[in-house]
Every structure is written in structure tokens, then in C-alpha cells.
């Protein structure tokens, strides 16, 4: 039979191809714009934290001879800020990959800020004799640390539950001299996950209960909080 079939003009194939290409690459572009915005957001949080640390350091230098009470660097707000930053950074790391230059840059900056904060807290501790609640955590995401993910979940939970707790997390393999120095000063071996709590090194996965045993203050904080809440609810029910 004679071919009476509808023949499609090349123009239509090409037109569909052009639209597809535009849609496809627009998706890529939009995704990049969102990524860049995220990076900018993380950077701005980091800058804010850097400013806070600098402010606290300056305050500390100014008040060296004065009362410890005036030094404003032990509160929970700062720890919460670090927590927010950690969550965002870990999300970016997951989405953009461990090898993304921007992510590595943000991580290095974050690590430096943590070290600076740690040093400041140490100085306050020496001068004022307070015993801060801090945990230093070394992890690896090269695939050689099976329990690091779970340890991360435990520490995030503790951070949310106890804003008083300062958790400093470091990528064991991060190519940053300050982190390497921190690693060697603390004598951390490559047996991850590793936790350093009050100058004592702990290796392997630790549950929230294990950590609460090492830091008994956490239980006390919880008990006090529960007591406070019970009093509050008793008062409100009376009213």
C-alpha cells in the first residue's frame, strides 16, 4: 500500500529537543542557585559565630582581672548556634558530597571556630574554675567507620536535649593543620568513633546512657529540669 503516514518535520523533533534541553539545564541551574544560597547561609552563620567568639575573646581579655560572672560565654544560645551550623553542614556534606570544595572550605572554617571556642572555654575554665560540659568527637566518613553515623545521631540527640553541652566534632581526615594538631595533642588514635570527655579518650560506639554515666551532671540537669517543669505545671493547674 502507498505510504500515507504522517511524516514529522525535523523542525518538531528539534523544537522538542530545544525545550527539553532548556528545561533540563534550567533544573541544573536552579539546583545550583539553591546550593549557592545554602552555602551563603552556612557562611553567614559561621561569620556570626566567628564574631561571637571574637567578641567573647575581647571581653575575656578586657575583664581578665574582673569577675568571672561578667564573662558571657557559657550560655546555651552559643551551643545551640553551633548545633544549627553542624546540622546544616552535615546536610550539605550529604547532598554535595565529601569532596565538594565549598563543603570542605566550610568544614575547615567550622573546625577552626570550634577549636577557638574550645580554647576560650578552656581559658574561662582555668581562670574561673568552672568545669564546662564538653565532648570532643572525632569521626570519619571515608567508609572506614561503621559506627560514626550512629554516634552522630546520639550526639545530636544529646545536643538537642542538653544545650549546656558543648560538642565539638572533627573530621579525623580533614586536611587542616589545626585539626591535626588537636588530634595529636589529645592523642587520638585512628580507632573511630573517638570521644574525648574531660581529657579522657573513649573509643568505639557509646550510647547516650554510656555518655550520661561519664558525665553525671547530665542526669542532674535533666532531674532539675523535670522538677522545674513539675513545679510549673502544678502552679498553672492551681491557677
Amino acid at each position, binding site marked *: *500500500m502507498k505510504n500515507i*503516514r504522517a*511524516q514529522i518535520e525535523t523542525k*518538531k523533533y528539534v523544537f522538542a529537543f530545544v525545550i527539553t534541553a532548556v528545561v533540563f539545564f534550567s*533544573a541544573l541551574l536552579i539546583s545550583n542557585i539553591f546550593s549557592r544560597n*545554602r552555602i551563603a547561609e552556612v557562611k553567614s552563620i559561621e561569620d556570626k559565630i566567628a564574631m561571637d567568639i571574637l567578641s567573647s575573646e575581647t571581653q575575656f581579655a578586657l575583664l581578665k582581672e574582673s569577675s568571672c560572672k561578667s564573662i558571657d560565654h557559657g550560655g546555651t544560645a552559643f551551643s545551640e548556634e553551633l548545633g544549627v551550623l553542624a546540622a546544616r553542614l552535615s546536610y550539605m556534606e550529604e547532598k554535595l558530597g565529601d569532596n565538594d570544595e565549598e563543603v570542605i572550605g566550610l568544614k575547615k572554617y567550622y573546625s577552626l571556630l570550634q577549636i577557638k571556642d574550645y580554647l576560650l572555654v578552656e581559658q574561662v575554665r582555668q581562670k574561673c574554675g568552672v568545669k564546662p560540659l564538653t565532648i570532643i568527637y572525632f569521626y570519619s566518613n571515608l567508609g572506614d567507620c561503621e559506627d560514626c*553515623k550512629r554516634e552522630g*545521631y546520639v550526639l545530636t*540527640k544529646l545536643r538537642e536535649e542538653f544545650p549546656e553541652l558543648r560538642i565539638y566534632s572533627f573530621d579525623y581526615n580533614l586536611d587542616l593543620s589545626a585539626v591535626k594538631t588537636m588530634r595529636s595533642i589529645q592523642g587520638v588514635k585512628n580507632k573511630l568513633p573517638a570521644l574525648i570527655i574531660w581529657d579522657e579518650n573513649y573509643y568505639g560506639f557509646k550510647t547516650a546512657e554510656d555518655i550520661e554515666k561519664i558525665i553525671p551532671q547530665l542526669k542532674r540537669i535533666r532531674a532539675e529540669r523535670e522538677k522545674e517543669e513539675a513545679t510549673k505545671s502544678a502552679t498553672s493547674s492551681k491557677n
Partner: protein
Amino acid sequence: MIEVFFDSILYVFLFLTLYLEIFFLITFFEERLKLAVKSTTDKLSYYPSVTIIVPCWNEEKTVSKTVHSILKLKYPKDRLEIFVVDDGSTDNTWKVVQEFANNPQVKLFKKENGGKHTAVNFGIEKSKSELIGCLDADSFVEKDALHEIATAFNEDPKMMAGIPTIIIHEPKTILQKMQKTEYHNIAFFKRMLSPLDAIHITPGPFSFFRREVFEKIGLFKKAHNTEDMELALRMQSNHMRIRNVHTARVYTTAPESLHKLYRQRLRWAYGGMKNTLDYRFMLFRREYGILGMITLPLSLFAVVIFLYNFSFVAFHAIQAVVEKATEISTVGFLFAIPTASPFFFNTEFMAILSYIFLGLGLVIMWNGVKLAEGRFRPSMGILYFIALYGIVAPIWFTRAIVNVLFSRATSWR
């Protein structure tokens, strides 16, 4: 490195899928004015003589309803005859159809069991009509369906076959509701393929052929249990025009259980690939138009592309579920609830592409419902389709590929 390789293949497949969706949407845009034309109920200047064959094998429960629906068709009684062909039923089908024994429009035939296509061929050989169609005994038609088909044949003398829009009748189970939406989508694509001369199936329920089709290219053949596809491909290879008459609506019942659906779809997917391989000489040949360039390559490779994309999604979904389960088992359910913040809204390239696919898919579904039902009505079927189809379809697609690779034939039932 391996990840980059697999990702690259995925991107190529996604680009191709997007290209096809856009191609069909452009066609839709071109056709939209014709789609708005309402079906006509005016008298025809000429009523071609018509034979409708009802092949049945153990259809005692549904055959009567099917024949009654044909008798109710708005078509001159002297121009329409019905052949009920009992293909060696072992139940009471033959007894049930005796209620039509005295109806001058209905002729009853009984033959030895030989498969559906033999029953249809039996009827074709006995028919003298200009148009010959078939209606499975699990389907029934709207009153003006034949009128619509005859109108289309009258308007286009070169049209050799007219296929209807198939709608799932009263879906009850979740799977049936999912299939209803799937059939709406099929209705959309069939209508778009029609002006492109690229239809590759003349489905069993209510497809009509000019009798010269059978005179020129022969009767139905046993073809991997998908005879309706083989005949369509044979017609296309002979440059015979097949058109979709979307205003002719036929209702069919959908498999209600996963096992029955699996059997049906395995047969379709396997038959689709095997028939395409049998007619591979049409693949990528411009003389066969869109059929050669798009429809046939799709019916061969779509299963592979679908499964590849599905594996990717499944791999990431399983990974996410395992991670969530680990998180819950480590810190408890309450602490595993994700933080609600726009920061964590997924805007990865792949996620944005998924949103685009979902959007375009909804446009197609919307218009599919409009084409099939006359107007858009939201239904749970759309949700079931979006949520379930990607999970259940890989079951029969995977098996179909295995069967094609190892040449394992499927069965009708």
C-alpha cells in the same frame, strides 16, 4: 567513578524521558482544538454494515451484559449483527447465551477451544460486513460508541482501523483505581499517537477494521498472546491507517488482585517486546514515521529505561529507609523526626527533575481524564497511581525482560 558512570546513564535516560513527554505535550498543544470538538449524535449519511464478534471462554457471568450493551447501541438494527463465539467454554456460557437465540441480530457459534484469536478469526470468516469489530466478554460499550466509530470511518476513507478509549468500569480495589488512572494516561497517549500514525495496538475491546484489512493482510495470528499488537504492527508495516476515536468509549473490568494484574501485564510487556522484535525492520526507519522513530523503540526499551530509573530511585529510597531505621533504633522515634526548615527542602538536581516530571505527569493525567471522561474529576486513583505504579510495575517488567532474554512464553490466563 562507577557512580559517575551510572549517574551519566541515568541522566541520559531522564533526558530521553523528558524529551518524549515534551514531544507529546507539543502534539497535544497542536491537537487541542480538535479535541474540543464534541461528539456528534446527528444521523449519519451512510451507515456501514457492522459485525461485532464477542469471543468468549468461560464468561458465564459477564457475557450477557456485554451482548445487551451491544444491542443497546444507537445504530440501525439491520446494519448491525452480533456474533457470539463460544471458544469451547467449560462453564455455563453456552447455556447463558441461549437467551439471545431468537434475536435476529445475534448469531451464536460454538467451536473447539483454540484461543481468543481463533474465535475472532472464526467470526471474521463468517462475516460479510464492511466493518468488523470485536468486544471482549468482560467489556461493554456506551450507546453512541459505534456511531462515533462509524462517523470516523465515513470521514476518513483511508482509515483502516478505529480504536476506542478504554475506561475501567467501577474500580473497587486500590489496584483497580490505580489502573483507572493508568488507562486515562493511555487514553492521552493513544490520542496523541493517532494523528502521528504511530498507534501500535488495536486493543481487543471494540476496535474496528475495514474488512479489506483482513482480505489484504490476513487474519489474527498467534503472536506471543498479544494478537492485537501483532495485527496493528502488520497493518502499520503495510502503511494502513489506524486512528483513535476518543469519543467512542468502552468500559472494561480491571484485574482486582496483584496476581491477576501481574499475569495480564507480564503478557502485555513480554508480548510487546517480542512483537517489536518480530517487526524490528521498522525500528528507527523514517518511512515508518513516529512509529519507527519513537513508539516501537519505546515499546522495546521503555521497560529497560523504566527499570533502570526505578532501580536508582529504589536504591536511594532503601538507603534512606535503612538510615532512618538506624536513627530511630539508636535515639528513638521522637529524636529522629527531621527538623522542619526550608534549608532541608531537597533542591538537588535530581529532586528538581522529579518535581518537573511530576508536574508534567499531572498535566498528562488531567488531560487524560478529560479525554476519557469528558471532564476532569479528581480521584484517589491519581494518588494511588503516583504512589503505587512505580512499585508494582517493576514486578512484571523485570519478569518480562527475563522471559524475553530466556525466551519463556507467557500464557493467557
